[in-house]
């Protein structure tokens, strides 16, 4: 019917390789998110001169399992006046968009397995950063739909706050990124990492851009000081006020997945991605082989991301929440002009360099 196998010409080796990679990446993201909740509680405790969870297992490392188990066994409540379909769709979307970002992040260089060149990136699409932006923008739907479907004033308020906040900060984020893209000349994350491996990290070329990106990342992930959408003492949890059981767990979890992946994006864009600092990669590949180098690179990326996760927590337990007008002031009146200025200066410098610094 279909002229033999023309339409079903699947490269099964590639298929399995990608499938394994997807499973690994998703489960690693989830495990990291799980242990981020533990780390968050520990960091909070240590910064407040307390000890943190230490009952479940040695040093309390089984705490996230206990928490997850508890969430699973909680009664699942769907409010009578909520729109049931949307109510369930909300947390699904939040989690889905959070995890989808991981598809384009290069977790390491190529590996040689069974004579194949295996890329440690699920999809090396040439518009990687654009894809991330698209998916992150979708993330607001999870919150918005959840808040709307709850049919509750506080939830709706939280959702509205989240929507306007994320849209506001995406502008500054995007423009800060444009300055970076003018330097890289590519949208592919893998190529960006390659450029940073050969040259310097982009943090040194774009310090202001990174700062703006970092602040906006805090706002995009709804972390303190920009956690107005959840604002537990004003909105009783905001958009997830009506949620219970694992649906609540998904919302809370997606925040930590977001944190992990925004750390990964920031590392990839500004801190050399999986680049091992102070080491000549070519020499290293020569001595210990490609596969080991790829694994070490993955570990290095992981360490860099862990630092960002710690930074997220560190700031959370230091800086109090913004007021809503302050949030909007910062976004529109400070970050947006600053990022425009950054773009302008970067563009001017690039032009000057292309003209060999002749005025």
């Amino acid at each position: 019917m279909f002229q033999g196998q023309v339409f079903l010409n699947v490269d099964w080796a590639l298929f399995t390789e990608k499938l394994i990679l997807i499973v690994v990446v998703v489960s690693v993201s989830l495990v990291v998110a799980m242990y981020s909740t533990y780390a968050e509680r520990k960091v909070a405790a240590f910064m407040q001169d307390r000890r943190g969870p230490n009952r479940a297992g040695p040093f309390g490392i089984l705490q996230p399992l206990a928490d997850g188990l508890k969430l699973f066994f909680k009664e699942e409540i769907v409010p009578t006046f909520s729109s049931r379909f949307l109510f369930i769709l909300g947390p699904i979307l939040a989690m889905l968009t959070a995890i989808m970002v991981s598809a384009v992040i290069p977790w390491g260089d190529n590996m040689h397995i069974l004579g194949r060149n295996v890329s440690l990136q699920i999809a090396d699409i040439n518009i990687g950063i654009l894809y991330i932006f698209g998916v992150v923008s979708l993330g607001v739907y999870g919150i918005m739909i959840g808040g709307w479907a709850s049919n509750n004033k506080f939830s709706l308020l939280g959702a509205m706050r989240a929507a306007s906040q994320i849209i506001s900060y995406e502008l500054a984020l995007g423009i800060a990124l444009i300055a970076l893209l003018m330097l890289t000349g590519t949208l592919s994350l893998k190529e960006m990492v390659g450029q940073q491996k050969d040259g310097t990290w982009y943090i040194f070329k774009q310090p202001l851009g990174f700062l703006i990106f970092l602040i906006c990342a805090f706002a995009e992930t709804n972390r303190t000081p920009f956690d107005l959408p959840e604002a537990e003492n004003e909105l009783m949890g905001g958009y997830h006020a009506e949620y219970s059981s694992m649906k609540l767990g998904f919302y809370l979890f997606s925040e930590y997945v977001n944190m992990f992946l925004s750390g990964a994006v920031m590392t990839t864009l500004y801190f050399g991605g999986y680049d091992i600092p102070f080491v000549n990669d070519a020499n290293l590949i020569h001595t210990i082989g490609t596969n080991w180098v790829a694994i070490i690179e993955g570990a290095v990326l992981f360490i860099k991301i862990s630092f960002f996760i710690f930074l997220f927590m560190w700031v959370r337990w230091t800086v109090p929440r913004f007021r809503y007008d302050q949030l909007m002031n910062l976004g529109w009146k400070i970050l947006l002009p600053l990022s425009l200025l950054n773009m302008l200066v970067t563009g001017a410098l690039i032009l000057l360099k292309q003209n060999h610094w002749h005025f």
Partner: protein
Amino acid sequence: MQALTNRVKQVDRSKMSVWERMYLPAVFKGMAITLKHFFKKKATINYPEQVRPFSPVFRGVQILNRDEEGRENCTACGLCALACPAEAITMECAERKPGEEHLYREEKYAAKYEINMLRCIFCGLCEDACPKDAVYLTETFAPSNFHRKGFIYGKEDMLIPDPKTDPEGFARAKGSRITQPQGHGNER
């Protein structure tokens, strides 16, 4: 007006400088402070495994004393129940039968002696009132139970070990004014 302490700080309402309005330096300062606390000694202890040392006059759950021969000190005079402001203590007395001299020190004893730990305010007035050196407050505290009934402590909960069968436990549990420091209103 003169300040009560020297810790008063005048609030500075002058306009913020550009440096201050940048906000980030203040954030970094705050983060330095929290990081310092991150490595500080913890203010809390691992409670059930570790306990803080108590003051010698700490007032916890009551015990009923025995004397050196293992006889109960209490004669059910009722002075503790009378002294108790929370009315937590109830007792019933009984007469010592011939042959029970090794159990009770005097010819009258408490057949039932109950303290309701939900009512008790651990004021220690029972200890002060006791003329027979029988009731003492210990360092044990925070009794927990699944039922209200469990909080009514009877003689079997409060009597200290018998020195004849468990001399070590007796020595540890025995309440005495001699081991407590003088001058705290404890001396008779």
